[in-house]
């Protein structure tokens, strides 16, 4: 992918900038689709029609929303801390977008094939958390402040089970590199980690060989439980229902971005949707084979069209990511909100002990097998 861009544009700054900006184009497009998905799916679940006036079946409603947000008056509350108030949306979005640098969109496109992969994704996520706190504090509004505090407390708590769940996969593969984790799951749907991981020896992208056999079926229940744990923690980390206490409309108006309007509000909104996609895509990379197709090969490879394979791989990854975003939307309109004590019970007394237990069992099995 990089060599293709270089051959078109030559080795210069422009190539690098375009290469870095490709995920941004994708995230922006995805946000439009996800916003439409949210309104339409909620409408259908409640036996309504949803937006119907802009375009056929209202499908260009998100574009109209963007135009509206662009034209809206940008209000900065007079008692707010102006500098931090204006800085917060950028810090939050930076934190969400920076994580996409390590996400392999296909075997040919990855911003930075880091050996640190998962660790990096978790670390830069914390920058966005500081952004939330900045927004909550600088708005000088009690709803924003409480929203930000709840949100940060929740994200920091649920980072532990989420990281632990991914650590279980890392214990098995012995690498933090996301590209390696995907390559380990090649060759068909039964090799995905959610179904117990690879069943035959594989050579990872970094050249290391991972030995595996059908005995790996013992991992199936463990990894399946791990996936559920990761997904629950991911819901809490992105403040989605049933963990949307930080944005509980009945108590807090709309949480940390209560005072924001216009484009700055849109940036928070984008960061939230980007985060949703990020955790979905990490779930699909760690447990559902990332860009691997369920039948183990690509149509491009079968008919001998080499450029088709990366495109297909990208479509598979996008499809899996979208599917998990869809599940998040689905849950939002299905489940009621948890209480704060239930939220903390879930994290500290259910997810964390169980994830530690599974990590011990998987570590032991990896050692003896």
């Amino acid at each position, binding site marked *: 992918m990089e060599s293709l861009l270089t051959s078109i544009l030559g080795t210069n700054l422009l190539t690098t900038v375009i290469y870095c900006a490709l995920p941004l184009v994708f995230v922006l497009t995805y946000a439009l689709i996800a916003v439409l998905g949210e309104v339409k799916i909620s409408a259908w679940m409640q036996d309504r029609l949803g937006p119907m006036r802009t375009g056929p079946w209202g499908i260009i409603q998100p574009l109209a929303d963007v135009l509206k947000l662009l034209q809206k008056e940008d209000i900065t509350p007079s008692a707010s801390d102006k500098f931090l108030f204006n800085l917060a949306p950028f810090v939050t979005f930076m934190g969400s977008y920076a994580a996409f640098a390590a996400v392999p969109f296909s075997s040919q496109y990855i911003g930075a094939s880091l050996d640190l992969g998962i660790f990096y994704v978790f670390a830069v996520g914390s920058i966005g958390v500081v952004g939330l706190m900045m927004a909550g504090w600088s708005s000088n509004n009690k709803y924003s402040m409480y929203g930000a505090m709840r949100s940060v*407390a929740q994200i920091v708590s649920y980072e532990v089970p989420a990281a632990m769940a991914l650590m279980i996969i890392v214990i098995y593969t012995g690498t933090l590199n996301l590209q390696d984790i995907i390559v380990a799951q090649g060759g068909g749907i039964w090799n995905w980690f959610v179904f117990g991981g690879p069943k035959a020896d594989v050579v990872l992208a970094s050249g290391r060989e991972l030995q595996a056999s059908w005995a790996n079926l013992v991992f199936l229940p463990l990894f399946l439980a791990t996936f559920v744990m990761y997904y629950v923690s991911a819901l809490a980390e992105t403040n989605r229902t049933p963990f949307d206490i930080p944005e509980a409309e009945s108590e807090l108006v709309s949480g940390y971005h209560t005072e924001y309007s216009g484009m700055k509000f849109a940036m928070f909104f984008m960061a939230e949707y980007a985060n949703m996609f990020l955790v979905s895509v990490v779930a699909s990379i760690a447990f559902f084979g990332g860009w691997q197709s369920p039948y183990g090969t690509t149509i491009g490879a079968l008919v001998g069209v080499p450029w088709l394979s990366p495109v297909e791989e990208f479509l598979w990854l996008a499809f899996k990511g979208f599917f998990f975003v869809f599940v998040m939307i689905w849950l939002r309109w299905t489940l009621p909100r948890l209480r704060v004590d239930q939220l903390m019970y879930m994290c500290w007394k259910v997810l964390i002990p169980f994830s530690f237990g599974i990590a011990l069992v998987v570590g032991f099995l990896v050692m003896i097998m």
Partner: protein
Amino acid sequence: MSYTDAFFYFFAALTVGSALVVTFSRSVIYAAFALLFTFLGVAGLYVLLQADFLAVAQIMVYVGGILILLLFGVMLTTRVTNAEITTGTVQGLPATVVVGILLGTLILLVSRATWNVQESLPDVTGTTTEIGERLLTTFLLPFEIAGILLLVAIMGAAMIARSTDKTKEAA
């Protein structure tokens, strides 16, 4: 000037600039938020030195842990209203003398030290595996001791938090 040089000056300026804000800002909140950019700048410098694991660990520990704890501390100790905690200047003369001596010593040390300077960086692609292997072989004992120390610290913190809860119930 290559890209690497440009990035070095960018990260150096970010680190020093935000560190100055941390030092001179009167508002504790501003200082805490400026610390975010100091940490990011230092992490950037680590990356330029090919210490990628250290850079990400820096962000994870300092931004994800310490900075957030710091912000929580500041926000929970002040009233949630706009009462701003500020720092003031006290003990002007003794402070100037002490800081002056410290600065002089540091400048002397930096100028006299023989720095082990390398012409080019060794060609390493990722330090994670190496660090992991060293931690679990050569440096296993210090690693385990650090682990036990942290565990004891966590349990101690939990005990302290608990005991205050009990006195409340008794009262």
